[in-house]
Each structure stands twice: as structure tokens, then as C-alpha cells.
């Protein structure tokens, strides 16, 4: 079963007086449980594609289906609800809520979902333990290293068992060793929890971790290979 289904997705941006084509007609299917890298140079359209799959941005034409829901007919609050229940996000710049502690950041999504306090605390602690942050529950983002912050972000993304986790250049702000640790951890989660991961990157090392590598170039799919992964 395909968890993500894109059919001829097109997207253009107005940048000043120039019209920039971000996606020129992308069709892509991703199966449940995948660990997929969208690779390509910066400006290739991979981030736009991730955003459209995540319902953060809308396509000009084409059709996007995520976990059975067709995105292009949904309004903002339906999209918010879809993101809340089906999609987890990991960003390049971590983007944790600065006023909340690590534990609270992870809890926040479940709070939005209406998970009762005791349960969400329990789950948040478990997931933080899983990502190796058992000692940092009460620290605020500013008191964590980049790698730690990104682990919290991963924990936040997967804690509510989403259908897919979208990660935009998750390791770009980390040194290679920390980045590798993070990928290792993400892969573990992928295998342990059967969560689909889709991430964008232009880093060779990251690509090597992927089990499927989709090459994006000038807004089009330029290659698609299945690997056995690292």
C-alpha cells in the first residue's frame, strides 16, 4: 500500500518579477515503512515537494494523497488536523519551541491531540529514552547541543505514531559524526516502529543510509533507485 501518492504535481513561485518553476510535474509513490531520501542540489525542488506532501504548501496542479486523504481539497484547519495526526516534521534548524523543555516539546503534539496527561508524559519519556536523551527531560532547547535538539525534534515527530515523518535536511546543521548518529537513530525508529521516513538531503553520507533514493533535479524526478541501505 502506498502511503504517499503524487501525480503530476506542479508548483511555481513568483520571485520578484520572475516566475520560478519549483516542481514541473512530479509523480511519485512511496510505500508504507519506507526510508526514502529525496536528493538533489539546493533549489532542485525537494523541499517544496516535502512541504506539499506535508500539507504545508499546496500544489498548483496535480494530486497528492497522503495516507488515503487527498490534500488539494482540504482547508487550513483540515490540513492542520492531517498534519497533527498523520505527519511528523523534522526541520533543518531543529525548530523546537524555545519556551518549552525537551519533555514538554515532545508532549506538545500529544497535547494538541488530546492525549491525557499521564499517558503523554509516559510516552514522551519513553520516546526520549529511545532517542538517547534520558537525562535531558527538563532542559530547554537553548541548553541542549544541536545534536540533542535534533533528537528531541525526531522524538517529537514520531511520538504520536504518524504515518510518515518528513525531514528537511535533518543533518545539515550537524557535524558529520553527530549527523551519522542521528541517522542511525532515525533508521532504528523506522525499523522498530515501522514509521515511514522521507527526508531531503544533498549529503552523500545521508543518501547512503536511504533504502530508496529519489533524485530530484530542476523540479523533476531525475532518478529513482532502490538500495538495500546501510
Amino acid at each position, binding site marked *: 500500500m502506498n502511503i504517499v501518492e503524487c501525480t503530476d504535481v506542479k508548483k511555481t513561485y513568483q520571485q520578484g518579477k520572475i516566475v520560478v518553476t519549483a516542481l514541473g510535474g512530479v509523480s511519485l509513490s512511496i510505500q508504507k515503512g519506507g526510508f526514502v531520501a529525496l536528493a538533489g542540489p539546493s533549489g532542485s525542488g525537494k523541499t517544496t515537494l516535502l512541504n506539499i506532501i*506535508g500539507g*504545508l504548501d499546496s500544489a498548483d496542479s496535480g494530486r497528492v494523497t497522503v495516507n488515503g486523504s487527498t490534500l488539494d481539497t482540504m482547508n487550513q*484547519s483540515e490540513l492542520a*488536523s492531517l498534519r497533527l495526526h498523520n505527519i511528523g516534521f523534522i*526541520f533543518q534548524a531543529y*525548530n*523546537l519551541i524555545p519556551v*518549552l523543555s525537551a519533555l514538554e516539546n515532545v*508532549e506538545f503534539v500529544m497535547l494538541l491531540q488530546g492525549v491525557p496527561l499521564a499517558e503523554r508524559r509516559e510516552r514522551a519519556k519513553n520516546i526520549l529514552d529511545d532517542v538517547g536523551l534520558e537525562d535531558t527531560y527538563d532542559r530547554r532547547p537553548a541548553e541542549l547541543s544541536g545534536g540533542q535538539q535534533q533528537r528531541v525534534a525526531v522524538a517529537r515527530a514520531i511520538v504520536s505514531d504518524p504515518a510518515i515523518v518528513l525531514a528537511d535536511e535533518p543533518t545539515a546543521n550537524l557535524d558529520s559524526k553527530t549527523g551519522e548518529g542521528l541517522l542511525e537513530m532515525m533508521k532504528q525508529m523506522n525499523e522498530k516502529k515501522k514509521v515511514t521516513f522521507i527526508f531531503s538531503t544533498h549529503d552523500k553520507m545521508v543518501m547512503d543510509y536511504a533504502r530508496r533514493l529519489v533524485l530530484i533535479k530542476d523540479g523533476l524526478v531525475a532518478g529513482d533507485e532502490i538500495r538495500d541501505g546501510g
Partner: protein
Amino acid sequence: MSIDVKMAWRNLWRNPRRSILTILAISFASLLLVFMLSWQFGSYETMIDSAVKIHTGHLQVQAKGYNDKKGIRMVVSDPAAVGNILNNTPEVAAYTYRANAFSLVSSKERTYGVVVVGIDPVREAGVSTLKKLIRQGSYLSEGDTDQALVGALLARNLKVGLGDELVVLGQGRDGSVAATVVKVKGIYRSGQDDFDRSSIQIPLKNFQDIYSMRGAVHEVVALGKSLEYVSEIKMAVAAGVEDIGNKGHLVVLDWMELMPGLIEAIQMDLYSGFIFYLILIVVVAFSILNTFLMAIFERTREFGVLLAIGTTPGRLSKLLLIESTIMAIAGIVFGIILGSLLTWYFQVHGIVISGTSELMRQFGLPERIYPQLSILSASIGPAAVLFITFLTALYPALKVRRFRPVEAMTAI
């Protein structure tokens, strides 16, 4: 504590300097309003009280038309009957009878036209402050006949002192010449020049004889237990006087009808105050609007993330409104406390504005003014501040609803 409140609270302390300045701005407006309104309300009460006690009482029963024309023939012919009604109205604290006649009053050297007022010395003392205003000599006593009280300015104009004789010449109720000689028994000073130079008071019985009143009076003056009871008393008395004498001949007028200028002057002062306060609050609102706006400009990325992970726009608005409400409430609470302390200090010690005592006296105000702190005066102003602050906060809170996650996250 819910997570929203917790987040809002922590967000406030991300930039403590800014939050404190904002809270102080709100406090400043609240403080000022508490103090000013207490001051205004306090002086109105004093003004009304002194005007009521010097001039009109809380309400009067008069013949219809007397208030405008002051004709000597327009009388309450059976004052005792009206007195009876007042006796049976429990909210009435005291009442008295008065009769007035414009007459020529001459001393040895001078003649002036003044109002001669017949008063019941005992009852009058319960209703008006006249007895306390005596500065020389003494107040009238029950058995006095040919004695008079004279205002200090009139005494000066007439060049009379205690014990001097005054010749009174006027026209009686029946058109006959009314003439008598009275002795100055006391000289009073209210501080209101108009009052102090325009009348003399003689015993009512004496007045009724001289002006052939045949037992009638012009005004039955009543004082309620407090200002709030006035409309109640008015209704009760109005119903009562219906049955006396000719129907519709007597009317009941309250102090606002007797002194329309006073209540209008108070309203004017209040309204013009409101204009000033409103402008002040608007200036404060724009002063703090930037704080609220900055909260969203600075945190645009953060809001983008919150939206991305599934927070609804409504929740973001709520979060922002909680933040601004915390600041607003902290501000007004602080403002109310400081304002009340300040007001309370002056309520105990009074305020003197130098060079204004003469002016104050003309409006029945003492030189030293005591603001009157009340629930009302301590809450109206801050409530207005809270309301306008909330409106101010609404703009950014609604603006955040238009944020789209991608644009927000990529904003600087």
C-alpha cells in the same frame, strides 16, 4: 496550569524588559484613572452635598411654578399636611419650612434689595448647614422674633454689625405693605459670594406675620438619609401630595431640578474628563501595540513550526491573547494597587491646589480636597484600560491566523 498559560507566561519572560515596560505603561494609565476618577467623584459628592445643604435640600415641595417665578402668592398653604407625609416617609432624615420674599433692607446708611427668608430655626438646623456657618453672634433660637441672620458680604455692604437694626420693606402675600425692624443676631459666611450677599434669615413665624402668609410657606425642604434615596422619597412624596389641596397644585422637585446647573456642570466635567482619559488610553494602546506586534514578528518562525506540527491557527491566537491578557491584568492590578494607595494617601491628607481656594469656595468645595476611593472609581478606569488593551491585542492575535506554515518558517 494549562500548557497554553505556561507557554504564554514563559514567553513573557523571554524579554522581561519589554514586558515590564508594557506592564508599566498599562499600570500608569490605570493608576492615573483610579486617582482622577476618585478625585472627581469625591469632589462631586462634596459639591452636591454642600449645595444641597446650603441651598435646596435633597428635594422640595412647592407650589407649581414657584421655582421659576418665585411669586410670593405661590404658596404651600398647608405645610403641616406636607410635613405629615414626610414624617411618614422613613427615608426622610429631616425637613423644614421656608418662605421667601424679595424686599428692601436698609441699615442706617445703606439700602439693598435682598431675599428675606423665613426659617424654622430648629428644623432648619437639621436640614442645612446655616447654623454651622455662623461666624459672629449666634444662630436664631426658637422664641426669637425680631432677629435676623445676615450674610457676611451683605453685612459689609450694609455696614452693619451684631445688634444693629435693619428696616425691612416688602410686599405681603395679599399685596399689602410688609414692614418691620429686625436686629442682626448672627453673621454667617458660606464662602459662596452669591449666597453671602443676597439674603437675610428671620424666624418663620415672624415672616408669616409680616408678609401676611396666613400660615403658608413657599418651600418644604427635605433631606433624605442619603443621596441614593432621593428618587424613592420623591415618588413617595409625590404620591402623597396629590391628595392635598387642589390636585396638581403642589409639585415635588429634587435637587437636580432645583439646581439644573450643578448636575449639568458635573456631567460636563465628567464628559470632558472622559475625553481626556480616552485619548490617554489610546496613546497608551499605541505605545504598547508594538510589544504585541513584535511578539508575532519575532516569533514568526516559531508560529510556522507550531502550525506545521498541527497547531490550529485558533490556538495560536489564544496563546497570544493569553500573553497580552497576562500583561494587561498584571498592569491593571499593579495600577489599581498603586492608584489606590496614592488615592488613599490623599484621602487621608487631602490635596491643596495653591491659589484656588477662593474659586473652590464658589463651588462649595473646601480648599483641601479629599478624593473618594470607591469600588466604582477604582474599577471603571482600569476596566476601560483592560478593554482597550484587549482590542489592541486582538489585532496581532487575529493577524497570526493568516500565517501559512511555509512562509512563516522561512521568515527571518
